[in-house]
């Protein structure tokens, strides 16, 4: 299985966010998408997830289910956690597991492994931001899908949960999955490729600016 993109261009609200982006991620590999705020990390993930159409370029998947789109084989973990406050922790996860066509057998294990097993019956309204994020991550574990699209997955997690997330990502890769993650920090994956969305011209301008500042009295 291999996910490839060539020459992707993204335009949002009439403004070109990025252009000419290409990558290639094979099964067992991870791609870390980096860049400053507004560089288009989330937009790139949403393009891969099929939520927005690229203004140009091509994106394709080799070796997946031929009848399924990329989105239908992917887990998307966005900024929002898709947690319903009036349902309990377990009910939230059970719904997504059933909706994605996975069995509901792995729900208990998934909640245990993200550390929410003890509060499975609690209404999700009482969860903290980090706990809601963990509940979202449990979704990736409860239903198997080969592609993980993670948008700042560690942003609200504490150090322990971050380590666990790294563990989940490593075992997903070891089982032949692939990961595309937008991140500011370290993913903790040794073998991740990096794709920077910062335009090189900006970097050189900044360097020139710094050099000019350094040389002026």
């Amino acid at each position: 299985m291999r996910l490839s993109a060539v020459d992707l261009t993204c335009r949002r609200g009439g403004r070109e966010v990025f252009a000419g982006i290409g990558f290639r991620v094979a099964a067992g590999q991870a791609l870390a998408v980096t860049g400053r705020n507004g560089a288009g990390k989330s937009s790139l993930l949403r393009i891969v997830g099929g939520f927005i159409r690229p203004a140009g370029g091509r994106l394709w998947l080799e070796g997946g289910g031929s009848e399924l789109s990329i989105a239908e084989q992917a887990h998307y973990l966005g900024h929002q956690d898709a947690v319903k406050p009036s349902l309990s922790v377990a009910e939230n996860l059970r719904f997504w597991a059933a909706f994605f066509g996975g069995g509901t057998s792995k729900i208990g294990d998934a909640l245990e492994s993200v550390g929410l097993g003890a509060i499975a019956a609690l209404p999700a309204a009482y969860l903290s931001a980090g706990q809601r994020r963990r509940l979202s991550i449990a979704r990736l574990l409860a239903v198997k899908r080969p592609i993980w699209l993670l948008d700042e997955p560690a942003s609200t997690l504490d150090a322990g949960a971050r380590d666990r997330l790294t563990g989940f990502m490593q075992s997903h890769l070891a089982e032949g999955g692939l990961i595309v993650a937008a991140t500011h920090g370290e993913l903790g994956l040794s073998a991740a490729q990096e794709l920077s969305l910062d335009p090189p011209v900006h970097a050189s301008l900044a360097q020139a600016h710094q050099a000019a500042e350094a040389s002026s009295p």
Partner: protein
Amino acid sequence: MNPLTALLLRDMRIAVRVGGGALIGVLFFVVVATLTPFAVGPDLALLKRIGPAILWLAALLASLLALDRLFAADYEDGSLDLILTGRAPLELVVAAKGLAHWLTTAVPLIVAAPVIGLLLDIEPPAQAGLVFTLLVGTPALTFIGVIGAAIAVTLRRGGLLLAIIVLPLTVPVLIFGVAAANAAVAGPVPFGTPFTVLCTLTLASLVVGPFAAAAALRLDIE
């Protein structure tokens, strides 16, 4: 469990819990229908004449009340993104959510209608006809409403826009629903004629609503 069954059960569960919309619709219906006799006065003949219209208007507005959260709640918390990555066709997802809305807002209202009918001097045989028109006509209100709910989903205060989009489209349903209910209550028009048109409107909205709403949702997400 089938993905659509799971969605239906989830939406119904959310609707009947704290903060859900199920009770609000039927309460609104009961309040409007109860206040009408106080406003109109104790003129039984008049109440009987306007009773079906009042009940239908209250039913229309009550079903509109919970509609603006139908997709907006899922859009705001990111659930709609995930629903799009599911393997269930979006048209059927809309249909399942519409069905959940109908079951949680329209059905309680239909159950309450005979009791409320007594306040408007609608007698038991006519009540059966009135309830029957609501049973057949309210799915049309819901499935016309889902189109507006899908269009207004990205707007913060989409409720009013939703009403402006949806209400003109529901006018035919209102006309033939009230006509059929009047025929059942007072005559002299035969019940069958307006009732058949009402059935047609419902069947058409069941087909058109999910496709139109799904198309609107796909645009909203971009």
